[in-house]
């Protein structure tokens, strides 16, 4: 059993009438890439800020590295790397100066720091931009600088709060690969996002949050097993008569069939030949259709089934 790095018990945070965190429990173990997945406003950042002792909370207990987390717990702080949701760098300092400044808040020794800064630059591939001011960097590069500032001191626990917001897919992949690399090098990662694909891609364990509550937790496979959906078949088609739709709905293993926006969407639970059966019905009725997809459940389906709403409005 690996060591527990972070333990959150019964955490409650209120903003006046709004309950931002509602009796939240989390346990994160050494070596994990732990994903906090939830829609906007579900309380991910609030959790992180409480964890860091930045935000006062109403109730609960937080331990990091086995010790109670307080603003004075410098030992814990020394070993945490934090990459906030918003880019936090100095506009007046160059890339390398920014990294050196933040690294210097953790590491006093000059030689050691120089090496750390160089490592962070290689890691984020910012070699060509070390003399740039943040204003001159593209969005993706800026995010990478933000990450470099957070990890230069080689922390044991790295917390990333939506580090890929507003980053193009290519840069995003680079960032995700980087995070996995940090994990391979021994760091424990906490990663928050409302992009389920990212979380699925890199996280070894995931907690899904909604309205300040943890609604499910486990590996992605465990999560997917929690729900009845096993397959979603969608068919591009111009129109489906009601009787046909009804007929599809009564097929074995099918528990929902609907037609929206030129697309027939059929949800199945178990069974092996759902796709063929559905297509057969369509063919018998002499309906022409376009592309056909059969998809395994996603975390979105998990979220949808548990909360009755989509993880995010298709953006």
């Amino acid at each position: 059993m690996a060591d527990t790095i972070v333990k959150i018990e019964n955490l409650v945070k209120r903003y006046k009438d709004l309950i931002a965190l509602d009796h939240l429990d989390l346990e994160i173990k050494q070596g994990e890439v732990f994903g906090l997945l939830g829609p906007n406003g579900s309380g991910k950042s609030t959790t992180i800020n409480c964890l860091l002792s930045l935000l006062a909370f109403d109730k609960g207990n937080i331990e990091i590295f086995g010790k109670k987390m307080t603003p004075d717990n410098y030992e814990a702080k020394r070993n945490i790397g934090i990459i906030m949701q918003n880019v936090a760098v100095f506009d007046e300092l160059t890339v390398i100066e920014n990294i050196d400044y933040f690294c210097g808040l953790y590491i006093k020794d000059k030689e050691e720091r120089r090496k750390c800064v160089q490592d962070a630059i290689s890691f984020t591939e910012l070699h060509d931009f070390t003399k740039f001011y943040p204003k001159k960097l593209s969005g993706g590069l800026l995010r990478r600088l933000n990450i470099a500032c957070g990890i230069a001191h080689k922390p044991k626990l790295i917390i990333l709060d939506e580090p890929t917001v507003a980053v193009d897919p290519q840069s995003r992949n680079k960032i995700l690969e980087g995070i996995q690399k940090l994990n391979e090098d021994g760091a424990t990662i906490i990663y928050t996002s409302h992009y389920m694909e990212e979380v699925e891609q890199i996280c070894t364990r995931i907690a899904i949050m909604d309205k300040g509550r943890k609604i499910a937790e486990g590996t992605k496979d465990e999560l997917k097993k929690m729900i009845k959906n096993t397959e979603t078949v969608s068919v591009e088609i111009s129109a489906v008569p009601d009787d046909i739709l009804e007929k599809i709905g009564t097929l074995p293993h099918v528990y929902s069939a609907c037609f929206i926006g030129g697309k027939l969407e059929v949800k199945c639970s178990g069974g092996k030949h759902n796709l063929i059966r559905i297509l057969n019905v369509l063919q018998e009725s002499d309906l022409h259709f376009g592309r056909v997809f059969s998809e395994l459940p996603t975390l979105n389906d998990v979220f949808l089934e548990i909360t009755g709403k989509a993880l995010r409005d298709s953006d």
Partner: protein
Amino acid sequence: MFLHNLKYDFLQNIRARSLMLWLILFPIILGTFFKLAFAGIYESTTVFSAVPVAVVENGSNQIFREVMAQISEGDDALFETEYTDEETALKMLEERKISGIIYVDEKLSMAVAPDDTGSSAESIRRTIIKSFVEQYNAQQSIIVDTALHSPAKLPDVISMMSESSECNENVPLTNGNPDNMLSYFYNLVAMVALLGSNLGLSIAISSQGNLSDIGARKCCSPTNKLVSIISSMVSCIAVQTVCIIISVSFLAFVLKVDFGSKLPMVYLAGSVGGMAGVSFGFAVGSIGRMGLGAKSAVTTAFSLICCFFSGLMIGNMKAIVDNYAPWFNEINPAAVISDSLYCLNFYDDYTRFTQKIVTMLIMTVIFTAIGFFLTRRRKYASL
């Protein structure tokens, strides 16, 4: 750790160009503007007439009386003298029947009314008194010598002296530089000092977790907040001092504003005023949750209002304030700073000057304490 912070605080401040430019360009532009606007105003308008003064003697000084009699006769009399006791003299001064009091003791000293009339003629009279007292003190030994050993030559010595006394006046007169204009320049220095509050703002904002993302990041680090606050404070004050030195030097050496003979003290007063300005910004920065833009508007407006009441826009504003709310001039930072410069120029001893400097230091301590108190927190109710 401290030096590491200090290095980067300096880099930031120096590179925050708009702020630096503002602090340096502002006095240069406005100073030049004042200079141009005032040039020539007084060149031909001031008719020279005898200056009414009261003389308060501590014991009788025959030589001084003789000198005084000499320079107070004829159409080009320098003074219109009245010998009286201190109480009466002060009353006359208050009623503005005289322009100043000359105290006769071992050395001469003088008193003038606070510079609040804004009248140019009055300022010239003050300068004449001042320069006479200086001249007399400087040449006292010669005068006494002459009076004792060759009394016949005394009138010559005196006329020489009174001439050079007038001469002293003639230079600034024809340059259109009577000293009431000085009050505008004093206030300009005060303005620069107070605008330093915009530097101080950043100290609070960038170290508070709930005011900036950078603040949040700093709060998460194992570095004690006090270290980063003190280093920011030091760097801001240093940068502000440089700005003050540049401004005062520009006024003194390029525009040839006559700050009197104690220029180093002018730098000192400006720098201490600058500290008050920076710490004021630090305090405002740490109060409330407004962003940098809003707070910067608050400090800039505050600086301007202070300077308005101390006479940056209207010369005799300070006198008006003195009439209605004299206490305000004692706590208005701009008035305190400009008064300190005034005292430097018009009083021989440093009592009043020191008093003003102490006031500024007290302000600095209070503002800094407020800032520290509000910033030292590291856990916030909301972010």
